[in-house]
Structure formats: structure tokens, C-alpha cells
């Protein structure tokens, strides 16, 4: 068994060593922090053990589909001289950016078409003599309408939008190039509206939002927590120490990420604020207890005595929080969530260790006794206006309190089943974000943005394989969710038509090999087939963000693939709609899995340390109630379960359980000493309750800062965590004490 007195004594005896080690660690991790990189690419975070995700990644790497950016030019009518000039200007500007391998637009796209005497190979628009007259525009319009290759890729059917598509080289810095694209096209100051979309642009947008959040929200959260702490402790030590511990924990955990070469994702972007909120909590408990001991017991070795009291609750609280975060590792679909779980857990561990080693060392070295002499008195606002009425209510009407909670839980259970799920990346952006408009234009005018790839393995010059590709395209385009598709088979079919003036697909492999001559060296080729001509893809887009449509489409396509895939022509399908289906399902699995794991381990751990399984179960009750309330609130308000909000329950469990642990451990000690249930409850509420309230207010305030985030799921994340904190605090201060009174009344000296 841990000898708390000895440990506390040792901590104080080796205070200088602790301080030096912490300083060295901070210097090391602080230096590592410089290497930390941001990676907002969701595709890279997809797991390799999922067939759809693996294939999607492979296609992204081999066919460059991850590196395709799109500029949408929107105006009242594309077929105007000035608009065509501006499209050419943008095309030329993009072509001049180093790292962009190809640009395709209305003004440079190759046009192969049959004529009376043969084939005309040229550009759709003469780059040196852009169309000016109505007749020239009519000719251009007809060329576009009559060529199936341009459907959904160049000019929208309502003729108000045109696409400029560019590809970024594999080894290029996507973020830098995407920024250069925005910067250079913006400085052109053309009157038409420009929107940017496609993976490189989205990833860059999200990275920027992440940076903005980090640089603006973190200082605000810092300030808010500082104010709450100042109001609560009314001492500089009470403000500086918790924040110092939080900052060191942040530096250490992010430094570890950088040290291990793990990049910051749009989920781990939350880590600093979470650690800031949690990391300060353990120090608050230490300071609170030191103040309490100093005030009541007048010990000469105040810090040591206080440490003996708080060591177990703090370690227990940290372990349970860590369990909450670690639970993400199991059953989570995205690697970024696993990383988030690991490094937030690590940050929590650092905060715990620092608060029990470093904080006492600092308090002792700097002899902060006098400076903290203005410790809050028992007649403080929290005690008089919150804890006292609460205690009166619980002591007098424990059954009524219990009934209130039962009604509240029942109401939440009723709404729990209406929770929506969403895996749409667009939900990351606020409704007024230009990306949302871009997405809308793409869906309405160009058949969507979610890429679908049908992957073929076989001889890409075999007539049988190419015909199967055409059949697959035709079948796919029959779905209302697919507007158009493009493949090497369609290109060959079109060239063959122009060459032979017949829609009969070539029967001989030699014919296809020779038609290929016209495509050799074309920049578009690597987007459809690999170098060895053994793999090829059909590229398409999916319209609906709706999950049901995705599931139906997956069934529709899988049926076709099962019937048509052969050894010589192996067919597979993937794309974001398919990944979304798995991700959506994983949200439920991950949620249930992580909560079940966390609850189980919390009960076992608390039960083991407090040497009572009953205590473990009791500690879990307020937090289980909180989780039900949380889901009820989400169902009632329509806040969807997504890759950010799926984290809330386990995070809330990990942090919220601490309140119950503090109450229950305090209650146990007091009840053991006095055998008076009412006195034990009163002492628990008045002593631990105060620290809990300070902690809830500071943690919630910290998380509420996320409401100002530029990323919508993070706003909800902040709001829901704050709500859970308040709820678990109320659970620990009302539901749990009521239960403790009702369960222990008979064994108490004082039954009234």
C-alpha cells in the first residue's frame, strides 16, 4: 500500500530536484514544439485495415486524386468575352505556380472532334483568339453541349459557372500552393465570384482555421480560467500555479507529439484547451486543500498534511480521466481520434504528476504561506449561496432529489433516440463560410463533390476491360446520385468515334493500342490509368450528403460488382460516400465501445482504490446520469453526433467522474471517522464541493471558449462538455449525496 505520508515527505525533501527536472523537461519539449506540424487531411487519417479507406488512399496516391483543386468561377453568364478572358487569366496564373502539374479549364482544354475530312485536334477555345461574337459563343456552346466529355466538368448547364481544375504535384507542399492559388487569383481582382474547393483547398482552409483557433482561443481560454481562479482563490498563487501547470502539461504533451513525429489533426487541435481546463483542476485541489489545512489545523507542515489528503483523490481523478481518453483507442475508426486519445491522456498524466510533485515543491520553495493567507473563508459566496442551500435540500429531501433526477433521466432517454449522426466534412464550416457556397454550387451545378472511384485491375488496353468500364459507367449514371463519370474507356470510345465515325467499340486490342497513340503524353492519362496500364479508375461524384442514399448506392453498386468482377477484370468501388458509411457506423460503435470501456474501468479502478466495489458503482452513477442527459440534450436540440462530438461523452466521463470520486472518498473518510451520514455528507459537500464548483466553473469556462471556434463541431464540443461538467457537478453534489444518505441512513448514528 502506498505510504502517503512518506511520499509527501519525499516530495518536499526532493523539491529542488523536482523543479530542475521539470525545467529541463519543459526546455526539451518546448524545443520539440517547433517541429509540430498541422495535418488536416481526413483521408490520411483513415485506417489501413478498412478496405474502402485503404483503396481510397491507394487511389489518391497512385492517381493523384487527393491533389486536385478546383476554382469555381461564378457569374451571370459564362459566354461573355470578359469572362472567357478572366478564365484564361486564372488558367495562366495557375500554370505559372511552381508545384502545379496541370491546369484544365475552358480556355485550354483539348478538344478532339470529328469533322468532314477527319479529326480536328485542338483547344476548345483558340487561346490566341478568344471568342468575341455571339456566333463564336454559339459555336463554343454547341461544342460543349455536344461533347459528353465536358458534362459536369467545364461549364454548368445553366451557364453561370465554370471550373478551373488544377493538380498539385505529389511531393509539393499542398498548403503553400493552395495559399498561393488563393493569393494570386485574388490579386487578379476579377469581378466574377471565385470559390475554392477540392481536397488541397479544404485541407488548407481547415489548417488555417485550426491555426486561428489555436492562436486566438487558447489565450482567451487562458484569460477566462485566470479570472475564474482569481475570483475563487483571490490570490496570485491560486491563479498562477494552476495555469503554470496547465501550460507545462500542454508543452509536454504537444512536445511529445512533435518528438514522435505525429501531426496535429483537426481533433487534436482541441488538446491544448482540454489540458488547460483539466490540467488546472488538479492544482486547484492541491491549493484548496493546502488553504483548508492552513486555515483549520495550523500545522507547521501544511503542505505535507494537505498532500496526504489529496494524493489519492488526485491520482484517482487523473487515472479515471486518462481512462476516458484512452477509451478512444478502442473501436475508433479514425487514426486522428486515437492520437487525440493518447496525447490528451498523456497531457492529463503530466498535469497530475506536476500537481502532486511540482506544485508542492514550488509552494515549499517559495514559501507562499503568507501570500495565500487571504484564503477564502468558510462564509464565502460559494459556501453561503450554493453549497449551504444544496446541503439543506439534500439532507431534508433526499428522495425528492432522487425523484427529480429519475424524471430528468427519463426525459433524456426519451430524446436520446432522436440523435442524428453526421460525417459530412462540410459541417466543419460555418454556414457563411465560402466553402459551404462552393459545395452548394458543386452539388447543384456540377453533380457534387464527394468523389467515387471504381477501380479496375486488368489490361487497360483490353477491349473486354474497357467495355466493362463503359458498362459500369452507364450503370452508375442510372443512379439519381451520380451525374456523370469519366474514365479512359470513355476517352478511347470518343477518339474511336471520331476516328471511325462509329459508336461500335473497337473489338481488337491492336486498335485500342493504336488509338492510345493520340493520348500518349497527355496530362490527363495518369489520372485514369497507372504507368503499367494494369490498373484504371472511373472517376465520379456523389450528390447527396444523406447517409441513407449512400447506403442504398453502395448496395446498388456492390450488386453490380459482384456480378461483373472476374479474374481478368477485377472491380472494386470506393470513395468518400463509402468511407462515410463505415465512419457513420463507427460513430455508434466507437461511442458505445468507449463509454462501456470507460465506465467499466472507472468502476473497477475506483472500487479497487477505495476498496469497495459499491463505492465504484456509486461514483459512476452521477456520470452515467450525465451522459444520458448529454445525449438527451443532443437529441432534443438536433446537435449531431460527429467526429468531434463523439468525443464528448468519454471526455465528460473522464473529467466528470472526478467530482464523484472527491465526494465519495471524502464521505467515506468522514463516515468512517464519525459514523454520521449527515455530518459526512455535509463535510463532503462543504469541503470537496467547493473545489468541485471552482473546478467546474473554470473548466466549463475554458471549454465554453470553444463556442467561438471557427469550426462548427468544436463549438458544439465546447458547449456539450461545459454542459456535461455542470451536469456531473450537480450529479455529484445532489444525486450522489442523496443516494449516500438513503443507502447509509440505517448504519448511521444520526438517522435524522
Amino acid at each position, binding site marked *: 500500500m502506498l505510504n502517503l505520508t512518506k511520499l509527501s515527505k519525499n516530495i518536499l525533501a526532493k523539491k529542488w530536484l523536482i523543479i530542475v527536472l521539470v525545467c529541463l523537461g519543459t526546455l526539451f519539449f518546448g524545443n520539440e514544439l517547433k517541429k509540430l506540424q498541422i495535418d488536416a487531411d481526413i483521408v490520411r487519417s483513415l485506417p489501413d485495415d478498412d478496405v474502402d479507406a485503404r483503396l481510397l488512399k491507394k487511389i489518391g496516391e497512385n492517381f493523384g486524386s487527393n491533389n486536385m483543386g478546383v476554382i469555381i468561377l461564378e457569374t451571370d453568364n459564362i459566354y461573355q468575352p470578359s469572362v472567357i478572358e478572366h478564365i484564361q487569366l486564372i488558367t495562366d496564373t495557375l500554370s505559372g505556380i511552381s508545384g502545379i502539374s496541370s491546369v484544365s479549364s475552358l480556355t485550354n482544354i483539348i478538344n478532339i472532334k470529328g469533322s468532314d475530312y477527319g479529326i480536328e485536334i485542338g483547344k476548345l477555345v483558340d487561346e490566341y483568339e478568344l471568342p468575341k461574337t455571339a456566333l463564336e459563343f454559339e459555336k463554343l456552346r454547341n461544342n460543349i453541349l455536344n461533347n459528353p466529355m465536358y458534362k459536369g466538368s467545364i461549364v454548368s448547364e445553366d451557364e453561370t459557372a465554370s471550373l478551373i481544375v488544377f493538380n498539385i504535384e505529389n511531393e509539393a507542399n499542398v498548403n503553400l500552393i493552395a495559399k498561393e492559388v488563393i493569393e494570386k487569383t485574388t490579386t487578379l481582382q476579377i469581378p466574377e465570384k471565385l470559390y475554392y474547393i477540392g481536397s488541397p483547398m479544404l485541407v488548407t482552409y481547415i489548417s488555417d482555421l485550426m491555426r486561428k483557433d489555436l492562436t486566438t482561443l487558447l489565450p482567451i481560454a487562458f484569460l477566462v480560467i485566470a479570472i475564474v481562479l482569481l475570483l475563487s482563490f483571490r490570490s496570485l498563487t491560486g491563479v498562477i500555479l494552476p495555469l503554470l501547470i496547465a501550460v507545462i502539461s500542454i508543452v509536454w504533451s504537444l512536445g511529445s507529439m512533435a518528438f514522435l513525429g505525429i501531426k496535429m489533426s483537426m481533433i487534436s487541435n482541441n488538446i491544448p484547451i482540454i489540458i488547460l481546463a483539466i490540467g488546472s483542476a488538479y492544482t486547484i485541489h492541491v491549493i484548496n486543500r493546502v488553504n483548508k489545512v492552513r486555515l483549520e489545523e495550523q500545522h507547521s507542515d501544511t503542505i505535507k498534511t494537505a498532500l496526504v489528503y489529496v494524493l489519492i483523490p488526485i491520482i484517482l481523478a487523473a487515472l479515471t480521466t486518462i481512462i476516458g481518453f484512452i477509451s478512444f483507442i478502442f473501436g475508433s475508426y479514425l487514426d486522428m481520434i486515437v492520437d487525440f486519445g493518447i496525447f490528451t491522456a498523456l497531457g492529463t498524466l503530466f498535469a497530475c504528476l506536476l500537481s502532486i510533485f511540482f506544485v508542492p515543491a514550488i509552494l515549499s520553495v517559495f514559501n507562499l504561506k503568507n501570500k495565500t493567507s487571504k484564503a477564502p473563508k468558510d462564509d464565502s459566496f460559494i459556501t453561503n449561496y450554493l453549497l449551504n442551500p444544496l446541503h439543506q435540500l439534500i439532507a431534508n429531501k433526499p428522495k425528492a432529489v432522487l425523484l427529480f433526477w429519475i424524471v430528468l433521466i427519463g426525459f433524456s432517454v426519451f430524446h436520446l433516440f432522436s440523435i442524428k449522426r453526421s460525417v459530412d466534412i462540410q459541417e466543419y464550416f460555418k454556414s457563411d463560410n465560402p466553402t459551404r457556397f462552393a459545395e452548394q454550387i458543386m452539388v447543384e451545378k456540377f453533380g457534387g463533390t464527394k468523389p467515387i472511384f471504381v477501380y479496375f485491375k486488368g489490361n487497360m*488496353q483490353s477491349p473486354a476491360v474497357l467495355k466493362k468500364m463503359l458498362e459500369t459507367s452507364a450503370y452508375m449514371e442510372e443512379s439519381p446520385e451520380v451525374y456523370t463519370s469519366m474514365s479512359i474507356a470513355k476517352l478511347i470510345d470518343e477518339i474511336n468515334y471520331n476516328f471511325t465515325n462509329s459508336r461500335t467499340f473497337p473489338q481488337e486490342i491492336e486498335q485500342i493500342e493504336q488509338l492510345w497513340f493520340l493520348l500518349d503524353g497527355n496530362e490527363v492519362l495518369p489520372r485514369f490509368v497507372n504507368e503499367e496500364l494494369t490498373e484504371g479508375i472511373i472517376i465520379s461524384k456523389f450528390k447527396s450528403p444523406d447517409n441513407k442514399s449512400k447506403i442504398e448506392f453502395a448496395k446498388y453498386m456492390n450488386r453490380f460488382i459482384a456480378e461483373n468482377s472476374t479474374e481478368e477484370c477485377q472491380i472494386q468501388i470506393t470513395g468518400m460516400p463509402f468511407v462515410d458509411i463505415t465512419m457513420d457506423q463507427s460513430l455508434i460503435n466507437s461511442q458505445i465501445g468507449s463509454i462501456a470501456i470507460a465506465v467499466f474501468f472507472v468502476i473497477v479502478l475506483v472500487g479497487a482504490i477505495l476498496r469497495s466495489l459499491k463505492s465504484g458503482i456509486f461514483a459512476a452513477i452521477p456520470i452515467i446520469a450525465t451522459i444520458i442527459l448529454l445525449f438527451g440534450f443532443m437529441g432534443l436540440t438536433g446537435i449531431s453526433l460527429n467526429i468531434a462530438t463523439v468525443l464528448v461523452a468519454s471526455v465528460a466521463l473522464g473529467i466528470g467522474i472526478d467530482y464523484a470520486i472527491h465526494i465519495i472518498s471524502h464521505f467515506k473518510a468522514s463516515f468512517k471517522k464519525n459514523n454520521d451520514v449527515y455530518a459526512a455528507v455535509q463535510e463532503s459537500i462543504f469541503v470537496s464541493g467547493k473545489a468541485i464548483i471552482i473546478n467546474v466553473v473554470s473548466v466549463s469556462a475554458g471549454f465554453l471558449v470553444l463556442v467561438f471556434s471557427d469550426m462548427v463541431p468544436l463549438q458544439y464540443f465546447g458547449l456539450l462538455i461545459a454542459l456535461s461538467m455542470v451536469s456531473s457537478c450537480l450529479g455529484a453534489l445532489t444525486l450522489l449525496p442523496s443516494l449516500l444518505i438513503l443507502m447509509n441512513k440505517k448504519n448511521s448514528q444520526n438517522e435524522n
Partner: protein
Amino acid sequence: MKIKQFLVFLFFSTLIYGPIQAQNAETLLQNMDFLIAAPKDKEANVLMIIKDKNGTIKEREANLKQKGKYKKLYRYTKPEKQAGIATLSLPNNVIWLYMPAFGKAIRISLLSKSQAFNGTDFSQEDMSGIPYSERYNPVLISEKNDPNYQLALSPKSKKSKYSKIILTMDKTNYYPIKMEYYEKGDKLIKIANYNYQKQGAYWFAKEVEMTTVLKKHATTIVLSDVKFDQGLSDAIFTIENLKLEN
């Protein structure tokens, strides 16, 4: 008085020296055109080595027959999948493509000069065969003591992809050594390095390497078994012959 005389001299010198410079540059470019188009006809095996930025190499081989400036017949021999494909270029930008698997020739109208020539780094404009002096206005930019001539060529037509070409020319024989192609904004886009050799009475480009700077993509064209003035018949450069010779 002496100063006045000097100023008058300077004024007239400027008036006269400018046209002399232009005329010199024009003559130099015409000399180069004359050297390139000197043989009455030419036959050679052409090896095209296309290298991408990853170092992946693709090779093509063709037999080239050329008569005058504008009649060119390429019959491809490698890769084997495309063996027998032939392109016949005739004056006035007329190109015929023959594909043996279809047994027919079809006329291709190349509407864009900036388009790549058969997947190489050369554009149709680079391979057109039209004399440089007809397409560009030259200005001599090299100094008297420079080892080679250097000319800045600006396109006569606005339908050129290039804004200028800096041509380095051999001082003795007037063959090109290097050409740097620039586009709008004086941005260097391509570099061609020539290796000229003399065979009999004629100089010819034994090897030309064209590099696309931004894409780090390069094509080398190597000529072998070069024969000049064999008296190639006009009948070779006909559509009927495209099918017959296969």
C-alpha cells in the same frame, strides 16, 4: 566645333548602326535557316527518349523521311504496340495519321500550335519546320568578343506560345547551340540543347534535348543512319503510300 562635329557623327551613327544590327541579326537567322534546310531530302532513324521528373524513361522509334521543309513522314517502329503508325505532314499544316489496325488514314487538323508533339516536350510550333526568320524578329544581343552569337527572337505572330527565344548560335557555321524559350512575363519555360554534326556537305542536329523547366520533364531526340539527298520521290509523301509501305 569639334564637339558639334562629334555630335553630328554620333547622331548619324545611331541612325545607321541600328538597321545594320537588325540586318546582321536577320542575316544570321537566315543563315541558320539555310543550314537547317540545306539538304534536298533526308532520311534517318529517330529515337525519342522521354524522361519524366521521376527519371522514368519511355522510348519511341520512328523512321523519318523528309523532303524540303514541309514534307515529313514519320513511321513508328517502337513501341511494338504502335509499330506501323505513320504521320504524314504536308505543307499548310496538313497532317495525315495512318493506323494499320484500322487500315485507314485520317486527316488531322492541328488547331493548336502549343500542343505537345506526340507526347514529347516539343510543341507543334517547335517542330513545324517553318524557317525561324519567317516566324521571329531577331535582335543580336551578344558582344563582339563573345564566343557565340546570341540573338533574342520575338515572335511575329501573336499566336505564339513564346514571348521570346534566346538563341545561342555557332559563330562559324551558324547552327543553333542552345535555345531558351520564354513565355509571358519573361518566364523561362523550356531549354533546348543542340548537338550538331557534319555529314558530307551538311550539318544536322544529331541530338536535341528539350527540357520543360517547371515540370522537370525532358525529351531527347537522337538521329541515326542519316542519309541526305537520296532523291526521295514525291510519291512517298502521299496518302496512298501511307498504306502501301506498311
